[in-house]
């Protein structure tokens, strides 16, 4: 028992946000009289917050390096507008539109990166300029109107689900199957890492603990799959999100590239002197966040089924809030993808829950602001304790 408590306390910082999320889910589940965790609503939660999550994932490396990107909202609008013009007015095929939009995203990132990394202008200013420039270009491109609708392939990104190839029962069996496969994968991965730890002579947790923890991870996955299967199955958007989460978690924790980003955030001068190409890395984080903003722009345009002049307004603040709530440091050097995901979920559940309960939109906004402040304050207090 003592052992467990010691382990919990030791990881209090990381756990803080998960506990906060759990608390918020419980509060709203009770407050909405059970509506929050209905399968339809869980699916809605994913669709409503998918694009913010994509932006948060892109924003995190930028924040780790101690910088910020204010332009992502306008990039979302711009790429959405571009996609609308290309697919609706010029009839460019879907795949080419996608490629062009991502390329434009990369180009915008390179533009910002050049000014920030190589000319040395503070990222705040460069991306502030970007916000205005690309918002203006969006409105100009759309001539002030909303342009749609898209064809069904495009809309599928935000609207459709993996079809049930098995069928027959009311639960989406393909989703269940995928869930079972994921569980097997998790079990194997945990076993392998435990075995390699044992071989290297490292201390491992007691076997009963290992089994419980692995069982719980699988239970969590199966629970989510059950919720999704009870409605329409796994949305394509979730596949994209999981891919991005897994990919970026791997890059940030297991690659030299990721290490370097953290190093720059921790102490930029030291990083540069130890041979890291800091300018190149900053340049890269800018391209990365802008490409992801382009992806979010496409996802968002698919959700609204139109390119709109006011798209993306305020998205950068949501993405930044998600990263900080998830534990990123304001001065840079720390922050995790998992944290960004939890931060997005905390805000998403609050938005969704408050809307269902019927809290007036103006009060909702005030509450959100307070929660962001409290979340970061609690996080900082916990850090001080260490």
């Amino acid at each position, binding site marked *: 028992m003592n052992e467990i408590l010691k382990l919990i306390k030791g990881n209090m910082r990381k756990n803080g946000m*998960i*506990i906060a999320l*759990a608390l918020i889910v419980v509060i709203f589940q009770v407050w909405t009289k059970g509506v929050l965790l209905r399968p339809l609503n869980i699916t809605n939660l994913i669709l*409503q917050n998918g694009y913010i999550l994509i932006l948060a994932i892109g924003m995190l490396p930028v924040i780790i390096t101690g910088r910020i990107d204010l332009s992502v909202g306008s990039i979302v609008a711009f790429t959405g507008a571009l996609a609308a013009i290309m697919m609706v007015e010029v009839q460019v095929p879907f795949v080419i539109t996608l490629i062009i939009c991502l390329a434009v995203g990369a180009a915008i990132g390179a533009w910002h990166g050049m000014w920030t990394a190589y000319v040395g202008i503070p990222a705040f200013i460069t991306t502030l300029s970007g916000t205005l420039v690309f918002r203006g270009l969006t409105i100009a491109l759309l001539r002030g109107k909303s342009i749609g609708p898209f064809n069904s392939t495009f809309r599928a990104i*935000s609207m459709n689900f993996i079809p049930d190839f098995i069928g027959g029962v009311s639960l989406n069996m393909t989703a269940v199957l995928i869930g079972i496969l994921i569980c097997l994968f998790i079990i194997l991965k945990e076993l392998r890492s435990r075995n390699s730890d044992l071989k290297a002579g490292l201390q491992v947790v007691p076997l009963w603990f290992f089994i419980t923890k692995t069982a719980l991870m699988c239970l969590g996955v199966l629970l989510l799959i059950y919720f999704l299967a009870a409605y329409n199955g796994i949305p394509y958007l979730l596949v994209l999100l999981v891919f991005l989460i897994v990919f970026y978690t791997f890059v940030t924790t297991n690659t030299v590239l990721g290490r370097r980003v953290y190093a720059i955030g921790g102490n930029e001068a030291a990083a540069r002197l130890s041979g890291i190409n800091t300018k190149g890395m900053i340049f890269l984080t800018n391209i990365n966040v802008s490409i992801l903003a382009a992806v979010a722009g496409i996802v968002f345009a698919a959700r609204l089924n139109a390119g709109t002049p006011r798209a993306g307004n305020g998205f950068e603040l949501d993405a930044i809030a998600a990263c900080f709530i998830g534990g990123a440091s304001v001065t840079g050097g720390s922050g995790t993808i998992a944290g960004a995901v939890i931060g997005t979920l905390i805000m998403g559940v609050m938005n969704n829950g408050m809307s269902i309960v019927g809290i007036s939109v103006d009060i909702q906004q005030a509450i959100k602001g307070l929660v962001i402040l409290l979340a970061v304050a609690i996080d900082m207090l916990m850090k001080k304790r260490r």
Partner: protein
Amino acid sequence: MKKLVILLLLVVLMVPLFAGAQQEQATKKPMVTFLMPTKEQPIWLFQGDELVKLFKEKGFETRLEYAEDIIERQVYQIENAVTLGTKYLVIAAVDSYSISDAVEKAKAAGVVVIANDRLIMNTKAVDYYVTFDLYRLGQMQGEYIERALGLDAGKKGPFNMEIVSGSPDDPNSQIFYNGAMSVLKKYLDAGSLVVRSGQLEFGVTATLAWDTAKAMARMDNLLSAYYTNDIVHAVLGAADCVSLGVISALTSMGYGTAGRPFPVVTGQDCELTAIKSIIEGKQTMSVFLDAKVLAEKTFEIIDAFEKGVALKPDKMYFNDVFDVPAVMYEPVAVDKDNWQIVIDRGLYTEADLK
């Protein structure tokens, strides 16, 4: 360990999860959800209150939500309404082109979708449309200018007019413009009415998001560019919110004095500031859209659906995919002679207008 926290999380989650799952109460009353664009324009507050009042009286369960002019917020308000089991959705769209997917999901779940004021475009998932006669309203604004300047009595002018239209992403704006132009075009062609700035086309006169500040800035620029030696005699303002900006610009340019009388300024919605402005003699007219009548017409539609009878539409409106049946109510022109109507019909009280 982090995993133990996940344990706690799941255990704690289980309890309310199953508690919540059992609560499938069968409410006798059908639910109507009213979705409005924003609280910033009083017309939506008026409509929201009247709709909720009437439908509660008639035995419906009601929900009312505002989206602060944020499109994605309205999208998830639609989604949440479906999750909560609403039978009817009455939506005044923030952006008529961006909610087609959301209403299609609602339709697929069996909800009856009714568009209020702004027609939902690009989808078959709209069952009915309740609105005032948009074209007629535009005509009323044009006719008012025609009468006030004496153009219909044969005065040749030439009179200077500027046009400040509504938001380009609101399909209603184009209809108001077209209605007004149908009345004023002959005078523009004959030269008795002149747009000095040359900004005649809808696109160039539109005001994004119906924003007062944008309208004011544009009017400022028009006045300084084209009216240093001339005066403007009329401004075709699409609605009170943009006309408010126009009037601010005119006032700061010295209009409202003996040498520079205020031009004829039109509007719609009968916002409080506009009524006060009309009484003061700055804005010339507005259009009253009676929310009580809107509520009655909306009830006609929903009642017909409840009883399963077909309702004969007043007009069909094309939403770029199909013709949507519509029920309409009459707009009423309001100026300094008959503004009392806003008190009589309950929009404002005597105290409001002090």
